[in-house]
Every structure is written in structure tokens, then in C-alpha cells.
């Protein structure tokens, strides 16, 4: 079977699964599509969504919520998908107080949820909904209606192509394949693990020190706590190169004193970002669990310089520079599926 035919077959299977998912209860709809898709190793793109870049560098993608097209931020760092309070009011959703179920950076407590009947990403995937958490008023900008979290994203393999402004969803890989289809340039491959909230956790090397990081596409900044800065880099608050940059109300919460640190090189197993913009902030702004499990929240200040592909199922992270040379022969595009974009 040719690559193209395999891709077509897999696409057909994906469409059947997607169509069926519309009529299945939430638990079935969330079942791993790969488990029903046979043994095809080709990349099967399920959706290619336009990134709507926000003023701080985060990005939203179009999602049909309860049949209505809105923009949701893509946030691999949240716990659950969410809607803003404004969206809950606008959609007439019943808001339930469910006790403290989570916390965003900077002490933003989550204690409400609402039920979404359905959501749809792109043209080819439609899912029954479920419980979305409700964000406090004014936490996100008015053009954005909520956040797409790991509870949904984990059912796909996902690609961040920041340069071309595309967020691509793929059928989860079930075997090793040529994931980095967009270039033949050097790439990095890192094993990842997922914590209880399906956060993407991996190890990188910052200025020669191995560090545990969470890949957080919902954070415009990258953060390290003062404790980590002290333990790993010996920062005692007296280094003149560590400077107070600004005080910002992150997540519309308390004012946060943000310090810069002159880090030199962040190495993702071969692909490296020079002078990574990682802020140092007080420990208490981190959600409690993150303080124990991660040393850096890797946000878009770093990620935007990369082209990122996450295989949730295979627990792998592939990275290249954001700008790369295209492959000599572009991969074939299946009819009805957006072609992989050509390189610059």
C-alpha cells in the first residue's frame, strides 16, 4: 500500500471515528482514536487550525462550542479545558460551585464548573462535551472565550507551527514514524512524561544544569522560582545581573515582582535556544504541586522560537527551530486534509 493510500485509509478511519464520536457518550468519545485506527504509521492530520496570536504572544484557535464558533486559548499548562465566566453567562451555562479544584499561576483559585454539550475542532473532529472549569471574570481578554486544556489535547498528537500560525492536530501515532515532516534540518527528540493533569513534563539542560520543565503553551512568560534559582544556580539575591524587570498582574491576579536572569543556553537535547527569556519569581506564585514537581514553566517566550510536535500517546516531544528549511520533497497531502505547509 502506498503512503498516500495508507494516509487516505487512516483519514477515512479518523472521519468515521469523529462522526461516531458525536453520538457517543463523553467517555467513549474520549477513547483513544488510535486504538481503533489499525496499525497505520503515517501522520494523519485531523485539523489544521489558524493561530490567533494574542498581544502577549499566547494564541487561540477556532473551536465550535455548543455549535458556536469561538476562539479558545491553547493551554497545555492548565488542568482542564475552561470557559470564562463571561462565556458561561453568554451561553447561559449553569455554573456550579465545586469547591477548590485547582489553581492557576499567581494564586488564581478555580472553584466553578459548567457543562459544555459539544465541541468541535476544525472540520473533521467533533466531540461530546463535558465539564469545563469556569475562569474568574476578566482573567482572559474579551476576544477569547476559554482555554483548550490537556484533557482534550491529550487525545491527539499536536503540532505548534508558530512561524506559519498553524496549530495542527493529528491522529495519535501508534508506531514510530517520520514525525518531523516539515524539514530535514536537525531536530531534537525528547522523552516526556505526563503528570496527573496530563501536563507535558520533560528534562532540558539550562546552562549545563538538567532541569525538569512543564511545557506551557498558555503562558506568555517562562518562569523559575527563587528556590530553584538558589538551589541550582546559587542565586542569593545579590547577583547584580539579576534585575527587577517589572511588576505585572499575571492572570489578572496579585502584582508579581519579575526578575530577569542572564541565562545563556537552553538545550533541548540538541536544539538550543540562546539567551532564553526565563523570569525568576517568588515561589508562592507557583501552584503548590508545581513547586514540587517542576523547576521551570516553559512558556511562549521560549516556545515561539521553536517548532514543536507533541506525541501524547508515544510520550515524545519533537523540536526544531521555528524557521527551518523545507524538506526536499514535501509529503503528499490527502484530499480533504489541509496540506502540510511548505517551508519558508
Amino acid at each position, binding site marked *: 500500500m502506498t503512503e498516500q493510500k495508507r494516509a487516505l485509509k487512516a483519514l477515512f478511519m479518523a472521519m468515521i471515528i469523529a462522526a461516531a464520536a458525536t453520538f457517543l457518550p463523553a467517555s467513549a468519545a474520549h477513547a483513544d482514536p488510535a486504538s481503533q485506527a489499525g496499525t497505520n504509521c503515517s501522520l494523519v492530520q485531523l485539523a489544521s487550525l*489558524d*493561530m490567533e*496570536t*494574542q*498581544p*502577549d*504572544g499566547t494564541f487561540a484557535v477556532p473551536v465550535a462550542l455548543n455549535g458556536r464558533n469561538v476562539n479558545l486559548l491553547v493551554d497545555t499548562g492548565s488542568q482542564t479545558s475552561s470557559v470564562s465566566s*463571561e*462565556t458561561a*453567562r*453568554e451561553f447561559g451555562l449553569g455554573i456550579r460551585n465545586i469547591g477548590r479544584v485547582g489553581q492557576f499561576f499567581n494564586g488564581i483559585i478555580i472553584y466553578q464548573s459548567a457543562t459544555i454539550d459539544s465541541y468541535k475542532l476544525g472540520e473533521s473532529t467533533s466531540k461530546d462535551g463535558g465539564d469545563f472549569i469556569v475562569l474568574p*471574570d*476578566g482573567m482572559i*481578554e*474579551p*476576544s477569547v472565550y476559554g482555554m483548550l486544556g490537556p484533557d482534550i489535547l491529550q487525545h491527539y498528537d499536536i503540532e505548534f507551527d508558530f*512561524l*506559519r*500560525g498553524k496549530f495542527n492536530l493529528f491522529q495519535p501515532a501508534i508506531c514510530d514514524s*517520520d514525525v*518531523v515532516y516539515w524539514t*530535514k*534540518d*536537525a*531536530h*531534537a*527528540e525528547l522523552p516526556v512524561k505526563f503528570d496527573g493533569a496530563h501536563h507535558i513534563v520533560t528534562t532540558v*539542560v539550562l546552562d549545563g544544569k538538567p532541569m525538569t520543565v512543564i511545557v506551557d503553551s498558555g503562558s*506568555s*512568560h517562562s518562569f523559575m522560582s527563587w528556590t530553584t534559582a538558589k538551589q541550582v544556580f546559587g542565586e542569593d539575591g545579590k547577583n547584580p545581573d539579576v534585575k527587577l*524587570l*517589572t511588576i*505585572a498582574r499575571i492572570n489578572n491576579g496579585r502584582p508579581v515582582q*519579575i526578575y*530577569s536572569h542572564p541565562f545563556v*543556553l537552553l*538545550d533541548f*537535547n*540538541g*536544539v*538550543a*535556544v*540562546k*539567551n*532564553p*527569556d526565563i523570569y525568576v519569581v517568588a515561589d508562592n506564585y507557583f501552584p503548590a504541586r508545581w513547586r514540587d514537581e517542576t523547576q521551570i514553566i516553559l512558556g*511562549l*517566550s521560549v516556545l*515561539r*522560537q*521553536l517548532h514543536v510536535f507533541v506525541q501524547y500517546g508515544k510520550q515524545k516531544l*519533537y523540536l*526544531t*527551530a*521555528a*524557521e527551518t528549511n523545507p524538506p526536499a520533497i514535501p509529503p503528499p497531502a490527502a484530499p480533504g486534509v489541509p496540506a502540510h505547509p511548505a517551508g*519558508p
Partner: protein
Amino acid sequence: MKPVLAASLLVLLFSGAAEADGYQDFNLGLVSRNRQDWDATVKLMTLALSEPDLPPHLKVVAYFDRGTSYLGEKQFDAAIADFTTVIQLKPDYIEAYSARASAFAAKTQFAKAIDDITKAISLRPVYRPTYYQRIAIYTATKNMEAAIADCTTLIKMSPNEAMLYRLRGTTYRRNGNYDLAIADEGTALAINDQVAVDFRERGFDYAAKGDFSNAVDDFNSEIRLSVDLTLPYMRKGAVQWDWGKFADAESSFEHALKIQPQQKYGFLWLAITRGKTSTAIDSDMSQRFSASDLTKWPGPLVALFLGKATAGDVDSAAKRADAASQIGEICEAQFFIAEWQQIHQLAATRKFQEIAQTCADDAVIRPAAIAESNRPVAP
């Protein structure tokens, strides 16, 4: 292709490279924008926009962030031009209308600001911060009925949110509707009676309508809920002073100064209260303030009461203030000079009624000046 091995082939992504193209300039511009380094953001986004290879999907944000940076640098015309470009490129971009409204408001073009905010509200009627923005402009332009109407819209949207009743309450107060303000603050307290600020706001309203007893009760509640804060004692003391209960006021200001011994306004209020009770200022008071403390406002007033400056010095200092603070400082200077003249039995240069007229409506001094003008003149 196999992944590269660590250290064998590093792909270095140069942040900060001078020869960076549109995408790199844009990313650096984002970093600068998030650091609130407005000057750098303007330069980098201008560079990015001039690059032919800036991806088209990033142009709207590049213009928006440059506009925000111009706003941060108070270059309002440039900001308006960029936000207008954003709106042309993306007519449903709510944030651009709100941002342009801020620039128009800064230029005191309030009608245009209201038009833009109204457009933003029409695009997302449930988004509360946009109403707050319009309420602020209605309030600044003294269109209080419209401000109150927006508050009422918000309350209908979220009838169980105490802070919205507080917002309408303070708006009622600015419109002189003290009873309606007190009713709204009462509703806020019925929802949650552990919020100090709601007692404080209601205390202001009781004081404004001359109900000093209830005002003091509310400031006592504020004190109970605010651990070791100076200002609640100051507020209570000021109301007791207006009420003519000078011994109680003295006690309140002393409490404030125990918490924060170098509170200059606390010292000033204590000084004029002791003038009423014929008690001398403690001898150690002058040791609390260094020479540098006495240069910055209200330092010159403190210097007057410590015998280290003349009324003329204070007058001159107030008149040297920048435009934004001059009205407030002149009001304070006139009031405290008049009090100082009373204490020292000097001929008054101004009557308290006149002084009250020079003060802004919401100046702390204004009710005190009115209270003084209503007191019987000492024989």
C-alpha cells in the same frame, strides 16, 4: 532522519541577533512588550513591520503591541493610528476599540472614547471590564446617570456580586445620592459582611450626609477587619474631628501614629486636633522627621507645625506642584495654614468656606473645611 545528538550539532536560535528577520524581531518585540519596555517594543515592532517576511498572521498583533507601547509612552496620536490600523485589518477586534478608547480618553476626546468603548461592548456585551472602562469615563465627565446605568446593567448580569453594588454605591455618592449609595453598600454587606472596604465606603456616605455616629460605627468595623492599618484610624479620626468630638479624634490619630509613627498626615491631623484640645505636640515629634522628609509634600506642612517653615514657604511649595497635584496641594495648604493660624491666634488669611470651594469634591480636606466653617467662632 535521526535526531541530533546533544552537543554534536546544536541549532542555536539567536534571540537578540542584530540581523534578525521579521519573525525574530516580532518575538523580541513580544518579549519587550511583556517586560513593559515600551521604547524597545516600538522599535522592534516597527522593525518587524518593515520586514517583508513578517508572517501576515502576525501583523495585527505587531500593530496592536506597538500601539500599546505608544500608549505606554504617552504618544497618544501614534497609538490611535496603530489601533485604527488594527481595526481596519480586524474590525471585530474588541481589545483594539478598548485600547483606542484609552488613547482618546488620555487626549480628553471623551466622546470618541465612549464611541469606541460602546463598540467594544456591542461586540461582547457580557465582558465586564469594558463597562468599568466606560463607567470611569462617564464618571470623569460627570455623566453620572450614564455611569449609574452601566452599574445597574452589571448588577443585572451578576446580581450576587457584592463588588458591583459597591461600585454603584460609590457612583451614587459622586452624584450626591447618599441614601441610594448607603442602600447599595448595605446590599454588598448583606452578601458578605467581612469586607472592610464596604464598611469604609458606607462610612464615607454616612459622613457625607452628616450621620457621624453611623460613620464612626462603620469605620470601627473597618478597623476590626483591617489588622494594624493606619488609614482606617485616620478616617475615623477625621469624621470625629468633623463631628467636633476632638478628644475621640485625638485618640484615633494617636492610634494611627502608633502603627506608623512617620505618617505625615497623621501628624498633621493630630496637630490640629491638639490645637482644639489645647494639648501641646509631643516634644519627640520633631525627631521623627528628617530634613529630607520635609521637602516632599506634605512635608512642608509638617515643617510648618514643627516651626521649621513659614506659611509663605508652604504656600510656595504648594504652588510649585505639577498640574496634576496642584489643586489638591493648594487646598491642603490653605486648610492647614488656616488651622495653624487659629492655633497661634493669628489673623486668618482665608475663611474656611472659601477654602472648601478651592478643594476637589472628593478631597479629604473639604468636609473638614466645611465643618470648620459651620462651627461657632471662638470668642
